[in-house]
């Protein structure tokens, strides 16, 4: 039960970015999220796996079997669509039973499986209702039940939570993950919401302009982004251009900083990443990597507080803390928190990330 994409490329006739040379492997039972700004090719990727599009080069294999030009209906993939795509003229039981009917499963055994699938999403009592009488969250549960009832080889989720309100989204994240684990099914989840991806997935793939930037566990993606674009897209980030001075020091607009160990040679142009939550308050300017300045914008976010710290050196830094009363005149950047990553200012993905939504865009990238 696996999906393997081997160097697939697809270019649209007219406009549309397509995907270029994408290789990915989703193993049995694995939940992989693909994130990226709109137009990054993530939806195209899903269509290529589903068979709605055929790659111009490269191959898609499901369970080791090359799909070639196999039509979508013979691929045995459960797909949940953004707008649920429930059949409006069929009851919930009719919707969930439809894939069974197509496979020639009828009568009592079909009935049992439909009930079981609806019970799994907690909607068995609504089996005879029509989809339009349901809330968005309920419709999405039915769509999930319908996608799983025929025991597909893999599950593809195409931004399934984007049409739901925030509270329902949180609930459905857990629900989807629970069902996915229950079935132990290889799952590809397409989303533009990085928080959703980080909280749900075993591994996350970041895409941009049709290419894969990085595939890693949520932890590694956040703490060890492969490039500036990944760092900017995943979580909040303070990003600076820097030049390597030696194995432990880097020159930036903030001055000379003591940084985490790295493998870049002296004089290399790099990107310096400092996550907002790793910045500490300091009593004075005596310590290592301390900067003087003052708070300019202060945002209360409940359990968390996020402020802009205008340094005397010039650049402003985004800082996160859970201390509501903290009013530092100095901040300290622990050397471990000053990470050196590849600068991808040159090359195909060199442009700074386009604005996507406020959550994924760093608020004060210099």
């Amino acid at each position, binding site marked *: 039960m696996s999906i393997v994409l081997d160097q697939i490329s697809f270019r649209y006739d007219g406009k549309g970015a397509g995907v270029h040379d994408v290789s990915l492997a989703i193993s049995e039972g694995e939940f992989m999220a693909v994130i990226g700004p709109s137009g990054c090719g993530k939806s195209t990727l899903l269509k290529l796996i589903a068979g*709605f599009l055929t790659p111009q080069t490269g191959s898609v294999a499901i369970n080791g079997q090359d799909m070639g030009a196999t039509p979508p*209906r013979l*691929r045995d993939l459960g797909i949940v*669509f953004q*707008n649920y*795509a429930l*059949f409006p003229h069929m009851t919930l039981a009719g919707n969930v039973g*439809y894939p069974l009917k197509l496979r020639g499963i009828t009568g009592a055994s079909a009935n049992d499986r439909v009930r079981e699938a609806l019970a799994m999403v907690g909607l068995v009592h609504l089996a005879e209702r029509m989809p339009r009488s349901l809330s968005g969250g309920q419709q999405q549960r039915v769509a999930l039940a319908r996608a799983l009832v025929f025991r597909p080889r893999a599950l593809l989720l195409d931004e399934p939570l984007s049409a739901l309100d925030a509270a329902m989204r949180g609930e459905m994240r857990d629900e989807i993950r629970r069902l996915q684990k229950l079935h132990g099914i290889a799952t590809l989840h397409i989303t533009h919401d990085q928080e959703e991806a980080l909280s749900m997935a075993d591994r996350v793939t970041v895409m941009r302009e049709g290419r894969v930037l990085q595939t890693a566990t949520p932890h590694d993606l956040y703490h060890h982004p492969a490039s500036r674009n990944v760092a900017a897209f995943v979580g909040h980030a303070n990003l600076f251009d820097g030049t390597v001075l030696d194995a432990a020091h880097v020159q930036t607009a903030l001055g000379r900083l003591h940084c985490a160990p790295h493998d870049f040679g002296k004089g290399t142009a790099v990107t310096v990443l400092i996550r907002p939550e790793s910045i500490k308050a300091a009593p004075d300017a005596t310590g290592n990597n301390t900067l003087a300045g003052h708070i300019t914008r202060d945002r209360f976010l409940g359990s968390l507080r996020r402020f802009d710290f205008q340094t005397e050196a010039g650049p402003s830094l985004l800082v996160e803390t859970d201390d509501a009363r903290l009013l530092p005149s100095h901040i300290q950047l622990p050397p471990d928190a000053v990470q050196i990553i590849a600068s991808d200012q040159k090359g195909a993905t060199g442009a700074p990330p386009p604005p996507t939504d406020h959550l994924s865009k760093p608020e004060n990238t210099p």
Partner: protein
Amino acid sequence: MSALALSGRPTGVSSAALVLYAGYLLIPIALILLGSFGNSWSNTLLPVGITDRWYLQLWNNGTFLKAFWTSLWVCLATVVASAVIGLPLAYAIANARSGALSLTGRILYLSPVAAPAVVLGFGYMLAFSSETLPFLGAGWLTVAAHVVVCLPYLLQTLIADLKLQGMAALEQAAESLGAPFHRRFLDIVLPGMVHSLASGSILVAALSIGEFQLTNLIAGFLHRTYPIVLLQAFYGATGFACAATVILLLLALLAAVAGAAVGRGAASGARIAA
């Protein structure tokens, strides 16, 4: 205050427009109804006396009776043929992969609306009065002409509904669940189209019953429809003309109901047949 004035004025204008519109629509119909039961109607505002003799005359008039039945079967045949041709055609145009193809389809199916019926009628006369194609005056030719004139309206209704319902996305879902083309069409597309096919068929029926210009040119003498013979009634007594017109109105209502039934039946019938 300004808000009140702003919201007040259009309401006044729109209710005046509504009254005018209803007046123009209903007063002639009311007059025709009155006239059909009036004994005599000349040089007076309203007819004088009550009679049923105009309806009796109409009932005993073989030409009108025949035209009545001709109109009805031409109409039903037009509705059925439009549904049979219209559904797959609408589906094909709505699912056209290239923009150019979809545009061509649209121009093609809308051209009968743009071209005056007289042009079409004259074309038919030229084409089908020749010795190789001597079909002018044949009943089926009238049906074919009605289909050409009515189909654009049905297609418009069906295509709009296909887009509104997001049928392409529903079909994609069905395809991912394992449905081949014929199952998607029968299980998902057709049941979804029942309502718009019914309302489109009402439109087709109403248009077919009332069609005059084109039919007048091509129907010949054997298969004249009701509106064609109705014209003759206007040369006779006013009461007779009124009664004949009332019958056309009834015929149109009947056709609309039948059209709706056929539209629904066609969709579910096709499902059951498959």
